[in-house]
């Protein structure tokens, strides 16, 4: 396996609190990895360390063979790791189209090229193509603050993708999205990402989403990785069921499949 992302001996403490403890993982190119865990388990801390928002207390992160530990977010973005956020981070007073134009403008420009005009016909055509690809073209001229949550999430992800990253980290892409919308949104996102051949790590609480879209699961508990396996194995792992899935209704199904609970128990929950 050729690892595109490696974390070794990664630790992060905030005073007496340990948010990440001896994390060691290697992610292969084109893998789709789901990061699961209860609130406070260290999932977002891990994402924040990989993307430069937090500097690890100790340990190293290597991307494509290069040490990126402690680099600023913009440097890591320029190297090819981009991210979306649990709460969509878009330019609220700009239209959907303008959000993408700014994102494209920054991605295209190096050095003094930032002084060139933003509005170029070729760039506008690309922005429109991206909007169509993420199926948000009908919102093109709508101001971002007025968008439904799901559309704003798609815009956030589309903006993260304009730099054509090698790795994309999605922080809870379906949080705040209705049950009816979540699969639709994920289908759009995953098909777009598949076309780009990008390696994806996404934090997710929804086990149905995890089961359906990822090839590998990293389960976090108290800052540690307690399970690293394909979803078919990870989601029936007793430790994952106990510390991650817990008493959730989805957990019951997992427990039944793992043979840890009799079928039908709690099915009306």
């Amino acid at each position, binding site marked *: 396996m050729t690892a595109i992302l490696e974390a070794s001996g990664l630790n992060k403490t905030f005073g007496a609190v340990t948010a990440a403890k001896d994390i060691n993982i290697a992610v292969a190119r084109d893998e789709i990895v789901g990061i699961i865990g209860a609130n406070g388990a260290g999932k977002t801390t891990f994402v924040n360390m990989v*993307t430069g928002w937090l500097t690890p207390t100790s340990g190293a992160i290597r991307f494509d063979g290069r040490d990126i530990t402690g680099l*600023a*977010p*913009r440097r890591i*973005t*320029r190297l090819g790791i*981009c*991210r979306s*956020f649990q709460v969509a*981070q*878009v*330019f*609220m*007073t*700009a*239209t959907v189209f*303008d959000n993408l*134009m*700014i*994102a494209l*403008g*920054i*991605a*295209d*420009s190096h050095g003094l*090229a*930032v*002084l*060139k*005009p*933003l*509005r170029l016909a070729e760039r506008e055509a690309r922005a429109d193509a991206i909007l169509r690809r993420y199926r948000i073209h009908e919102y093109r*001229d709508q*101001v971002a603050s007025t968008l439904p949550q799901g559309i704003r999430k798609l815009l956030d992800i589309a*903006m*993260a993708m*304009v*730099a054509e990253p090698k790795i994309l980290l999605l922080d809870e892409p379906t949080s705040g999205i209705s049950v009816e919308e979540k699969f639709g949104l994920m289908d759009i996102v995953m098909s777009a990402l598949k076309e780009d051949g990008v390696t994806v790590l996404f934090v997710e609480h929804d086990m149905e989403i995890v089961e359906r879209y990822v090839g590998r699961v990293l389960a976090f508990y108290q800052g540690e990785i307690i399970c690293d396996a394909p979803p078919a194995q990870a989601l029936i792992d007793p430790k994952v069921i106990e510390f991650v899935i817990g008493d959730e209704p989805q957990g019951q199904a997992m427990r039944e499949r793992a043979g840890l609970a009799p079928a039908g128990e709690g099915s009306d929950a």
Partner: protein
Amino acid sequence: MTQFMDRTVIGLTLGFALVALLGVFVLPDWLMSQVLIAFSRALAVLGLVVLWRTGLISFGHALYFGLGAYTVAMLGKDLGVTEVLITLPAAGLVAAVVGFALGFIIRKYREIFFAMLNLAFSMVLFGILVKTEALGSTDGFSVEQPTLFGIGTEDSTVKLTVLFLAVCTVGWLSAVLVHRYLGSVLGSLTTAVRDNEIRVEYLGYSVAQAIHGKYVMSAALTGLAGGFTALALGQVDPESMVNWTVSGELVFVTVLSGPGSVAAPFIGSLLFELLRTYAFELVPYAWQLIVGGTLLAVIFFLPGGLWSLISKLGGRDRAAQPGGNRGEGER
């Protein structure tokens, strides 16, 4: 229309040409003098508008105004350099260099801290000037007669006309350049930084760098404004060049003008100058009442400044767009 000659550039060119022609052939000296002072101040307001669009307000740009003014005055007094082609660029340059140095500290702050830190730096300069006898202390000192291409004149009308044409030229050029800047990728990072610094960083651009650049630009424009004002008044002193009231006046005119267009500072500044003159004539001891009341009316009814009124009247109430020029009040 070419990329360079868009509607705004054509409007600016025609507008400044018209004002220049009116000044030379129609306006009386007193009114030409008012336009000179107003357009000088507008250069500083232009810089503050760029900061405002980035979500930043400075209550201390008198620092750069004073630096520009004293640079012009000191070049004449101490070095005998009166050539405006040297003194005016020097005014902008000195302000830009100081802005660049202070920018490393200031760019870390936002909102009220950004505003007040600028004020603090300006008050330091005020204190230094007040205590420096070599620079005339509180009385200041006179500015040497300016020269252009080495030629000077004692004729006040000729001098006024030359300065007036110079401020029109520099005003036009500055407005066009700032307009082009706002239409660039970097310029789009004004409203983008204001809206969401996290996203800007995660798109791969340094927010600190973006703010720093805009801060230096505003400092340079304000230094230039101070230089022109020193030449127009023929005198520099701490009270009228560096005091906090000067900073307040710049913010006042910025709010009055609105951030909707690069033309707004020139229109707003001229209206402010005329308003103040006539208010003073009407009620010499309470002119602030009229000026303050006007600002209140603008804040309540035209939060996008006077430019939003012009936009509405002209049917150009455009949506905010990066690479375009839309105002805060039109959000």
